[in-house]
């Protein structure tokens, strides 16, 4: 079986360190078994649309939630968001934006583009874990993902 079929959370994060901390938090809570980590926006889109190096993936198997960083190389967070919302197949995919910026224009823009929620990466690890924690629990337990 295609190992990508079991992916429940797609983590799009360019910082190795931020990714490591996020993954630790998720693992600690035993939330998600299968997390796939990509490091830029282009890879994220390739994964979700099953193209490029992921063309053998079954496009109908979406992850339950996408954790998307705002600042990314190649294709940045807002661009990824726009692309996902523009396509019918991914329009209702739960997406949570992650960023260290509280700057208003980023927040407004992301909501305008259809993000489900927005989380500011806090510095204190506890809060950081709690934020991811809450997302993880919410999306995997509460939200019945709309599968086309």
């Amino acid at each position, binding site marked *: 079986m295609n190992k990508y079929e079991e992916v429940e959370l797609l983590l799009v994060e360019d910082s190795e*360190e931020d990714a490591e901390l996020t993954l630790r938090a998720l693992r600690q809570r035993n939330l998600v078994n299968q997390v796939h980590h990509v490091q830029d926006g282009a890879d994220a889109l390739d994964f979700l649309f099953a193209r490029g190096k992921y063309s053998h993936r079954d496009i109908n198997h979406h992850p339950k939630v996408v954790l998307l960083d705002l600042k990314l190389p190649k294709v940045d967070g807002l661009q990824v968001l726009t692309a996902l919302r523009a396509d019918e197949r991914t329009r209702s995919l739960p997406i949570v934006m992650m960023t260290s910026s509280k700057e208003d224009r980023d927040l407004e823009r992301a909501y305008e583009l259809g993000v489900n929620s927005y989380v500011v990466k806090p*510095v204190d690890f506890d809060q950081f874990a709690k934020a991811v924690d809450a997302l993880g629990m919410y999306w995997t337990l509460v939200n019945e993902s709309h599968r086309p």
Partner: protein
Amino acid sequence: MKRSVPRAPWQRGPVGAAITCALVAGAILALDKYIALGVATGVLYVVVVLLALQTRRRGFVLLVAAGCSVLIGVGFFVSAPLGIPWQVLANRSLALAVVWVVAVVGLRRNQAEGRRIRSEESLRAIVDTAPDGVVTFGEDGRLLSINDAGAALFGYRSEEILDEKVSRLVPELRGTAAPTKELEGERQDGTTVPLEVAIGETRLPDGRCWYTAIVRDISERKRSERELLARQRELEATNRDLDGFSYSVSHDLRAPLRAIDGFAKVLDEEHAAKLDQDGRRVLGIIRKNAGKMARLIDDLLAFSRLGRRRVRSSPVDMTELATDVLEELRALENGRTIEPSIARLPQAVGDPALLRQVWVNLIGNALKYTRGRDLAVIEVAGEHSGDENSYVVKDNGVGFDMQYADKLFGVFQRLHSPKDFEGTGVGLALVQRIVVRHGGRVWADARPDDGASFHFTLPTAAARGEGVRDEQV
């Protein structure tokens, strides 16, 4: 501008006039006696009255008219009878009437002319003393008159420029009435001068047009405008720089900070066993400082962001706002006995979010610095006076030494050790900045260990001269 005109003998003062009139009257009397003229004689006395009218002295004219009347009567007896007595009488009466009619009409006209001349003189005085240039010209563009200010503005003497075309002074000037607009003028020395010009049109009875142009030199104003624009551009550039800087601080500084704290925690949680007690203490210090730095960054960013925000202007219910904030902050202070009181506060006009921040900082401080008290008493009150509303937050906390009061509102200034009370020292600086930009003042009063009161004022709507006005904080 005086005119020198040759003066006739009867215009040379009262004595001259009297002598002339007497002479002419005498001549007419002689005529009367020796030549039978009848009515004509009386009519000749009109000449004397006309002469008298030239002196423009009412009294003299009346005297002369009376005198001539007498002479007409005298002539009746002196001259040779010329026909039927009642006819002669009628003639003389007619002559008398004519003399008086001329005198009265003449006097009236003199009066009217006098008024006209005075009015002309006062208008002339206005034009001559006006600081702006007043230029009149005809349809063909030729200058009819120019006042001193106008001539000086263009660098000419009035004689030099009269009769030249007005386009020599202001090339774009045409003979049409026009509302005020900005044009360029040309001085005698060839330099240009920015002008504000308004043209009025006067239609003469014969159909021709006269134009009056009021010309104002606005070089000073133009210079100020340019300076203001330059300064504005500078400010905008600085603001853009600051924006970029803040954004960079926000993202780039926080990322490594997250890693420091995050991995220190990992160390703590997963590898603590490998560390001895001192090792764990050191780790604690690392984490504590990472946290402190994060708060500093947050506070600095908030301070700078508020600094670039536009201050909105709307009515704010201060009582409701202060109560809300107090409730919110109080909820975080578990297990404490707090006795708050909020009196009715005068409504304010300003930016609700910014004013909320003021309350958060002041009430927050009151709560913080009363932590050592068994019973924390916090009072919020306000007063309205014509020009400004004043508000105060009083507490019974540790207070501070008034000696250092001027440091209170400085950025990162603290009068207590962070060991005793946490904080970055930006809160009051923020309060001051917000209040000052609303047009108010802020000050504090305290005694060590005997509580503190923080006051601030805000101008009332009336004092602000209301209309919604946006201001940079």
